């Protein structure tokens, strides 16, 4: 069954590009939900059936690390996998994200081939 995806990025342009890249990569998915920061993402996760989250790190209001920390404390949503898509791919920040449950990371900018390689196993 195709998985529903939540895209979390403060840039609406980037959300459109990620959505297009998923299609160009040939990945099968169901619904795509969108959120502009961590707070909006938590609200979507509490109200919609989401299977995978693709999240930026550097965002206003609630960034990707704060989002992971908050999500980890909520039993109903804590097991939904999160993949970071960000310009922030240093070992420190990605290490912190993984310690909070992130499944992995994809560096911006990216090609559809890279999206397929990295996200294909999750989809």
């Amino acid at each position, binding site marked *: 069954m195709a998985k529903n995806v939540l895209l979390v990025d403060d*840039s609406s*342009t980037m959300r459109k*590009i990620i959505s297009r890249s998923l299609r160009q990569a040939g990945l099968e998915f169901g619904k795509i939900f969108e959120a502009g920061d961590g707070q909006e993402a938590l609200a979507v996760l509490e109200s919609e059936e989401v299977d995978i989250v693709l999240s930026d790190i550097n965002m206003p209001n609630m960034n990707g690390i704060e989002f992971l920390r908050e999500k980890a404390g909520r039993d109903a949503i804590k097991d939904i996998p999160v993949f970071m898509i960000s*310009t922030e791919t240093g070992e420190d920040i990605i290490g912190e994200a993984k310690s909070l449950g992130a499944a992995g990371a994809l560096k911006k900018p990216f090609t559809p081939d890279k999206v397929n390689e990295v996200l294909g196993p999750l989809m």
Partner: protein
Amino acid sequence: MTEDLAQYLVDSTLEVFSTMIFLEIEPGEVLHQEAASMESELTSLIGLAGDLRGVIGVHCTRDAAQGITAAMLGMEIDELNEDVKDAIGEIANMVAGGLKVALAGQDVDVELAIPTTVIGTGLRTSGLAGGSRFMIPFTLPVGVFGIELKYVLS
């Protein structure tokens, strides 16, 4: 160091345009200090903190900003709207991210702020007493844009 920083920014910008925008761009000669300016109608700024303090500016003519956004989103753009501001802000973010990764390899730590984009002509960055400044002009089929770095290296 300025030559290294300029090359990192050229490399980062070329990577962004080749992987996500699919527009051919051609970097020009680096402009230094007072010569580092260009006519623009939209500018996106992203602050830098850490070992390298300052600001990166992406300065676009109207045609360039609209053309880049159209290529990114795969749709026609005929005004400087929120999509354009968001798209150029994301370019600033990715270019700055590439600079951050390159500098990390030289043990220079940089933290990035969230980009701010403004529409208007004649915008100039100021501040950072003693700082250095340069701009790399880029030519693309639909206009010109410039990547400016104003910085102080600790």
